[in-house]
């Protein structure tokens, strides 16, 4: 869904490989000394895919949604964003898909200014995109894109191998197989955190010794070697090394077996119920391996699937811990850490307005050593490419940039 949105809708700015903002629909910006008022100048001559010009009113309307403690007003050929609180990270925020610029048609559908437009949309099933002839960057090389949604990764890989697809998501465990079968794969930097998060209010979450014992029992090295087929990184912290620069300081001490604490656990802590999202084969394999490792610490872990996307209901979710996969949505460390902490339900330690790397390290270390979360791996995004795909240039945050992609003609 996000991948489709990224090629249909544009944002005001986007982040480059180093996390620095670069213009997209905005061509210039400035703010006051307190970063409470931002003035943004829009790119002229931009049209939506139906030919409607992009206006400041449309942009202001798209950026207004409930929950934001700021105002967006039209100012000449741009917009002004104001807030009572300083907004030093506003550009990074505007670079997220949440702040994509769109227009609502009378039938309720949305159109954007991106390189492609939606021709057919069957939620959860398939989508057909066509090149946006009015793209301000110039028309995309591809005339259209057929997207199959909800297809298991195994079937995607088969479709890729059979030539029925040009681009497919690849599971980490299948990356080597794809590679060995002379297929092309693309790996992003580790952009996803796989971790165990304990459910608040459950007895296991309240027992620090159990949480620590389970964290120490997990043999990340074996799992990475076998289940991840040596893809990704073993995670001791929340942020990957490429993003934080200090992740090696939080590296897990694999191979140090914990003392056997399980026998001393009260009955209320046995077994520890660990859930994973249904349909996530990698998560299932990791969870089952965690159960095996936990046995060595005499901790009984009962693994079960949980419908993906189901919300935790009530005070007792019915499980003690959950295996989660969280995408790192920002290339800015402070923002990425804050978003991860919020997504995990952890209270973020206080940070100065402009935190140094050491400040972030301490904060992250405090989060990790609480053992409320057990980081497991930082996983890359992996895509399989057919042989005719050319000019594949995804972004640093893993977004597929299909506007510059083209397909080589098949050999007769």
């Amino acid at each position, binding site marked *: 869904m996000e991948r489709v949105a990224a090629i249909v809708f544009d944002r005001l700015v986007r982040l480059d490989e180093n996390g620095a903002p670069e213009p997209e629909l905005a061509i210039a910006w400035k703010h006051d000394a307190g970063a409470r008022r931002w003035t943004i100048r829009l790119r002229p001559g931009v049209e939506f895919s139906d030919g409607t010009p992009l206006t400041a009113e449309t942009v202001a309307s798209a950026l207004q949604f409930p929950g934001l403690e700021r105002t967006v007003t039209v100012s000449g050929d741009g917009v002004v964003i104001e807030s009572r609180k300083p907004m030093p990270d506003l550009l990074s925020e505007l670079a997220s898909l949440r702040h994509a610029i769109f227009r609502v048609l009378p039938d309720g559908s949305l159109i954007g200014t991106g390189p492609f437009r939606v021709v057919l949309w069957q939620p959860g099933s398939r989508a057909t995109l066509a090149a946006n002839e009015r793209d301000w960057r110039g028309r995309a090389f591809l005339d259209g894109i057929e997207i199959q949604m909800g297809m298991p990764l195994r079937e995607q890989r088969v479709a890729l191998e059979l030539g029925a697809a040009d681009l497919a998501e690849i599971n980490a465990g299948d990356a080597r197989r794809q590679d060995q079968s002379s297929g092309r794969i693309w790996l992003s930097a580790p952009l996803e955190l796989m971790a165990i998060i304990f459910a608040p209010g459950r007895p296991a979450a309240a027992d620090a010794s159990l949480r620590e014992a389970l964290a120490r029992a997990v043999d990340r090295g074996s799992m990475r070697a076998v*289940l991840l087929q040596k893809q990704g990184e073993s995670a001791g912290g929340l942020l990957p090394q490429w993003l934080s620069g200090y992740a090696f300081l939080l590296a897990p001490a694999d191979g140090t077996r914990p003392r056997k604490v399980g026998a001393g656990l009260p009955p209320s802590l046995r077994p520890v119920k660990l859930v994973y999202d249904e349909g996530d084969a990698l998560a299932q*394999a990791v969870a089952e*391996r965690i*159960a*095996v490792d936990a046995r060595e610490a005499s901790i009984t872990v009962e693994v079960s699937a949980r419908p993906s996307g189901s919300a935790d209901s009530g005070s007792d979710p019915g499980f003690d811990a959950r295996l989660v996969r969280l995408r790192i949505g920002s290339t800015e460390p402070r923002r990425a850490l804050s978003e991860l902490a919020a997504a995990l339900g952890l209270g973020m330690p206080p940070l100065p307005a402009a935190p140094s790397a050491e400040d972030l390290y301490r904060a992250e270390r405090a989060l990790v050593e609480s053992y409320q979360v057990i980081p497991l791996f930082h996983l890359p995004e992996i895509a399989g490419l057919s042989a005719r795909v050319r000019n594949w240039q995804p972004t640093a945050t893993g977004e597929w940039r299909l506007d510059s992609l083209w397909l080589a003609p098949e050999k007769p």
Partner: protein
Amino acid sequence: MSYRNRLLMVFGATVLAAVVLVVWGTSALTRRAFAQAERERTDALVEQVRHEFARRGEEVAKRVQGIADADATLRMAVGLAGQAPDYSLYVNEARDIAAARQLDLLEIVAGDGRIISSAHWPARFGYRNPWVTQTAEWEKIPAFLQREELVRGATLALLAVRVVRVGGKNLYIIGGQRLDREFLASLALPAGMRALLYRDVEPGFSLQSLNDASGSLAQGEKLAGLVERVRREGKEQSQTVNWSGDAADAETFYAQPLRGRGQEMLGLLLVGNSQRGVVLLGRRMRWFGAGAGGIGLLLGLALAAWLSSRITRPVEQLAAGARAVAAGDWQARVEADSNDEIGELGRAFNQMTRQLAEHRERLVQSERVAAWRELARRLAHELKNPLFPLQITVENLQRARERAPQQFDEVFRESTATLLAELRNMTAIIGRFSDFAKMPAPHLEAVSVNDLLRDSVRLFEPQFAGAGRPPIRAEFALDTEVGNIPADPVLLRRAFENLVLNTLDAMPEGGTLTVRTRRSGASVHIEFADSGVGLKPEERERLFTPYYTTKEHGTGLGLAIVQSVISDHGGRISVASEAGQGTTFHIELPAVVPAAVTRAGA
């Protein structure tokens, strides 16, 4: 109880005992035979299960050998035999191979014991198998039972291990099938039999560890005792379990231990044999036996009745003949046609009655002659006394006529007076005899026995205290419960007076007359007891014989009249006496009107 009924009971009891014995014996023998057949059937099944185990074991070993011989396995072994092999490439191999080879369990283990791939517990890669490297020559070891840990719990499995050797390094292939519901369901068992698995040897019975082909066993805790016994004693045991109140629902289980390579007990195989067929057959046999026994019993009783009738009929005829003789029918005879003991008895009876009749006839004739003689003697005696004065008077008249005619008139007057007096005396004597001859029938009315006795005794009080003789004292012991009885007061008074008069004669030296009455059921008992001289035995025997007397001037009719009156009232009189010890007359009179007396009165 009659002889026939006793005989019938004996015959019936004999028939019943015989029928019961036959039915019980047949049932017991049949049960034993069926139990033996069931045992043999179960032994055959258990043997079949053993064969099934062996066959499955061979099959598992063959499949595991097939995996070991496969090129893919050889390539894997080659890949793992190098320096720093990459185990991760083979982590999913076991799952795919197990699916292809239809094995429930498959582990591929490196030479150092590290699990490379596991089909039944994929997440266990990297851990070490604790036992496979401890044995060298797996090729010589057939399939064996092993307890295998799974993701959830453990299972009993039939495993085989084969080794692929490449470059001096071993690659162990451990494959097997689980002993579970599917395994039990795959056993071909005859109807009414089932196999169960108990897959736990820890102390204490675990119901979850007990399964049959359909899953967990309802009321499985009833097998806890059997499981415990096998586990404790380590050998086969059996037990019959009643699942409900109906014996047909019972099931006999034969449990045998399942042992691993080291002969350690890993579980139990229980073979259940439904008792429904045997119980229903037993019930049918019992019903049949009861029916046949009942019919046999009825036939036996009928035969016994017929036989007892055949046997007792002559005896009954003898009894009837005896009763007829007792009733005075001296001509009664019985059939005595048979030549057996009963016929002999009948002939003896007939001879006896014939002889009795002849003796009675002779006795009657002799008694009749004696009676006539006694009567003649009494008449002669009684009439001789008045006849002698008559003769003297007539002779005096003759002499006075001849010798003193002047005095003849006076003599004639005196003589005729004497003659008339003697003739009156003779008339009186003849009158008494006549009265006895025509004793009247009693006219019954309610009579107070006690009052009648007091009046009768009081009449003789002057004689009791008469001058010139020792006094006699009269005592009464009268029961007030006696009350009134139906009797003729005149005749009864006459009888009582005769008895009192008799006591006067029996106590010439004085004494005591005691009169007692007593009510006993429907009879009234009366006693006249004197303390007189008593009777000799011969006197006592003839006491009630008419005209018999021991007195000089008695007619011998007094006690005969008493007996006649008492008899006419339906009563009885008897006498008890010893010489010198007094005499007691016992009278028993009916307190209600006897039928015979009613008819006589009518």
